[in-house]
C-alpha cells in the first residue's frame, strides 16, 4: 500500500524528521490561507499514487494568494498520469542548494533490507543509478541487529563533499528513516530529493512510504485511512476477505481460477490465442461461496462478456464447486455465456450437476480456453 506524500510526511514529522511547513487541501480557495500563513512562495503538489510528478511537470509554484488559487484550480480534479487529483499538498518553497537521495528498501535477491544514499538526488535518480553507480552507496542491513551508528559510515561517505554539520544531519536522518522502515513494515521509504537548503539545513522535499499489505494487521490505523473512493474501498475489502487477487483489464473474458501461477498461465493462453481478458481473479482456494461472490462481481461488470471458470480440484471437490455454480444460476439469470473447465476430485459427480443445468464441463484447459476465445469473438 502506497501512502500519499502528505501521509508519509505526517509520519516523518512524528519521528522528528524535518519537512517543509504546509497542509493538504481539497478546495482551491484554501490555498490562499496557507500562503498567508507561510508568508512566502509555495509549491503546489498533486497527491498521486504514481511516480514521476516532477518529470510530468505537474508540480506548480505560487508567490501570492491569487496565483496559489489559480494554480490549484488548474490541477485539482484533473486526471494526471491516469489518476484523478483529489488533494493538493501546499507547502513552503525551500531554497535548495543541493538535491540528495536517501532510501531504505528491500533487496529481494539478498533477502535483506538495504539503505541507499546518493549526493545526486532529484528527478534523474534512475539514470544516476544506471550510469554513475559509484556515486551511489548501498549497505545491507542485518534485520535482527538493526542499524548502529558506525554501520552508517559507508553510507554517509556518499556525502564526503559536504561539511560535517550536513553529514551529521544526514546521519541522523538516515538512522530515523530506518526506524520508520522497520516500525511501519515498509517495502520502501524514500526521500528524493532530500534537500540541502540555502541555510545549511537538510529537509525532506518529497516522501515515499509503501507499506507491506500483509503487515497491515499490525497497522490498523492505516487500513482505516481514507480510500480513493467508496467503491474501490469496498472491492479491496472484499478481496482481502476472500483472499482474492483481482485486477481489472481491458478485454472481455472474465477469468475465475485458483492459484496465482495457473491463473497467470490462463491469462497468457488467452492473449496468445487472440482473446483478451476483462479481469484476472485468482482465488487462493476455490470454494462454492467464492464462486458465488465472484460471479456476482462479474455480473455487475459490464465489460465481462463471457465467464471462464477453471477448476482443478486437488484438495477441494468438483461437485461442491459445481453446486456453487448451480446455486448462483438458480438465484440469477446469467446474461453472458459461461465456459467451465473442471477436473480433479469427484469430477464425474460435478459434471453431472452441471449437466443438469445445461452447462457443459470441459476437461482440457486449452480446449476450454479456445472455446472461450471463439465465443467471445
Amino acid at each position: 500500500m502506497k501512502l500519499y506524500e502528505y501521509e508519509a510526511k505526517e509520519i516523518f514529522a512524528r519521528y522528528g524528521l524535518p519537512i517543509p511547513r504546509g497542509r493538504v487541501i481539497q478546495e482551491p480557495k484554501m490555498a490562499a490561507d496557507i500562503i498567508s500563513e507561510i508568508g512566502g512562495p509555495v509549491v503546489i503538489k498533486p497527491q498521486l499514487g504514481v511516480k514521476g510528478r516532477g518529470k510530468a511537470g505537474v508540480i506548480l509554484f505560487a508567490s501570492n494568494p491569487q496565483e496559489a488559487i489559480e494554480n490549484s484550480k488548474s490541477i485539482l480534479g484533473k486526471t494526471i498520469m491516469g489518476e484523478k487529483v483529489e488533494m493538493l499538498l501546499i507547502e513552503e518553497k525551500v531554497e535548495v542548494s543541493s538535491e540528495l537521495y536517501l532510501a531504505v528498501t528491500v533487496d529481494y535477491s539478498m533477502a535483506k533490507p538495504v539503505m541507499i544514499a546518493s549526493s545526486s538526488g532529484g528527478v534523474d535518480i534512475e539514470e544516476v543509478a544506471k550510469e554513475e553507480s559509484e556515486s551511489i552507496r548501498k549497505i545491507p542491513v542485518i534485520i535482527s541487529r538493526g542499524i548502529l551508528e558506525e554501520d552508517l559510515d559507508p553510507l554517509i561517505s556518499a556525502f564526503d563533499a559536504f561539511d560535517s554539520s550536513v553529514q551529521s544531519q544526514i546521519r541522523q536522518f538516515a538512522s530515523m528513516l530506518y526506524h520508520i522502515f522497520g516500525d511501519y513494515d515498509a517495502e520502501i521509504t524514500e526521500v528524493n530529493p532530500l534537500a540541502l537548503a540555502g541555510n545549511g539545513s537538510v529537509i525532506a522535499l518529497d516522501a515515499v512510504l509503501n507499506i507491506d499489505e500483509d503487515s497491515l494487521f499490525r497497522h490498523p490505523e492505516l487500513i482505516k485511512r481514507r480510500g480513493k473512493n467508496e467503491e474501490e474501498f469496498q472491492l479491496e475489502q472484499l478481496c482481502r476477505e476472500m483472499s482474492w487477487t483481482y485486477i481489472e483489464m481491458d478485454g472481455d473474458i472474465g477469468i475465475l481460477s485458483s492459484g496465482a501461477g495457473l491463473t497467470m498461465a490462463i491469462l497468457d493462453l488467452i492473449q496468445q490465442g487472440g482473446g483478451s481478458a476483462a479481469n484476472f481473479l485468482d482465488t487462493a482456494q476455490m470454494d462454492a461461496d467464492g464462486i458465488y461472490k465472484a460471479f456476482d462481481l462479474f455480473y455487475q461488470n459490464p465489460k465481462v462478456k463471457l465467464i471462464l471458470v477453471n477448476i482443478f480440484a486437488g484438495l477441494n471437490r468438483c461437485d461442491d464447486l459445481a453446486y456453487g455454480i448451480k446455486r448462483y444460476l438458480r438465484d440469477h439469470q446469467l446474461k453472458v455465456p459461461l465456459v467451465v473447465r473442471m477436473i480433479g476430485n469427484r469430477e464425474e459427480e460435478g459434471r453431472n450437476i452441471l449437466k443438469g443445468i445445461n452447462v457443459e464441463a470441459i476437461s482440457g484447459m486449452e480446449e476450454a480456453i479456445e472455446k472461450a476465445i471463439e465465443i467471445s469473438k
Partner: protein
Amino acid sequence: MSILAGSHTKVIVQGITGSAARLHTKVMLDYGTQIVAGARPGAAGEVVCGVPVYNTVEEALLHHQIDASVLFVPGRVVKNAAEEALDAGIRLLVIVAERVPLHDTITIVEKAEEYGATIIGPNTPGLISPPEHTKLGFVPSQYYTPGPIGVASRSGTLTYEIVSRLTSAGIGQTTCVGVGGDPIVGLSFPRTLALFEKDKDTDAILLICEIGGTMEEEVSELVKKGKISKPIFAYIAGRTAPVGKRVGHAGAIIEGNRGTIESKLQAFEGAGIPVAFTPADVIGIARKIL
C-alpha cells in the same frame, strides 16, 4: 531417492489442532509421511490422528527425534512459530502460509541462515517425494508418481496442472519442491537445483517459473558456470501480465527492468535451457530430454 525429505524424515506439525492442519495431517499420514508429533500452545496431551500433541516444539523434542516441521499456522504468527522451531534445533521448515509479513520472512530467513537450516516457503504447497511416499505440506499426491524428473516451482496449482500431465504421460518425479510464491523465500531455485544435481536418481530438472524476481536469471548463471550439468527445462507463467501490477503472486510483480519475461527468456536461452510456450509443450520437451 529424493531431496530434502524421505521416508526416514521424522516430522512435527506446528499448529496441528487447526482444521486445515488436522485434515492435512491425516492426508500426509495416509500417504506415508512419518509424523511423530504435533505442537500447539495449550494443547499438550491432545492426540490428532494418533499423533501426540505438545505445547511447544522443544517439549516434543524431549520425547521424539524430529527432523522437520510443517507449519500450519496463519501468516501473522509464522514468525513466532518458525523461530520456536529453529531455536529448538529443527533444520528443515515448511511454511505453507500465505501473507507472511515481508519483514517477518526476512527475519526468519536470516535466522535460518545463521543456524544452517532450510526454509521452504512461505506461500508454498510444500514438497513431495513420490518414490519415498513422503510429503510435507498439502500437495495433492494423486497427481504425482515416482520417476526421474526433479521439479522446482514457484506456484501451486500450476504445478499440479503440469505435473499431472507428466504423470499421465508416464513421466514420474523424484521430488517436487514448491519454493513459494513470495518475493522472498527460503530455499531458492539455485539451491534447489544444487540438491537435484547431487541426487543420483534425478535425470532432468523442470523449473516452473513466473515473471518477477531474479531466481531464473541466477539459475542461468549457475548453468553457464557449469555448476549444474543435468538437463533443465522450464515453463514461465505471466508472459502477458501487465507491468507494474501485482498479478498473481506478490513475487511476480515487475518493477523497472527487474524480472521481465524478456530478461528471463534471454537468460534461459543463453544457458541453453529450453522453455515451453504452453503448459502442454512441457511434455514434449520432457520426452525429448529423457
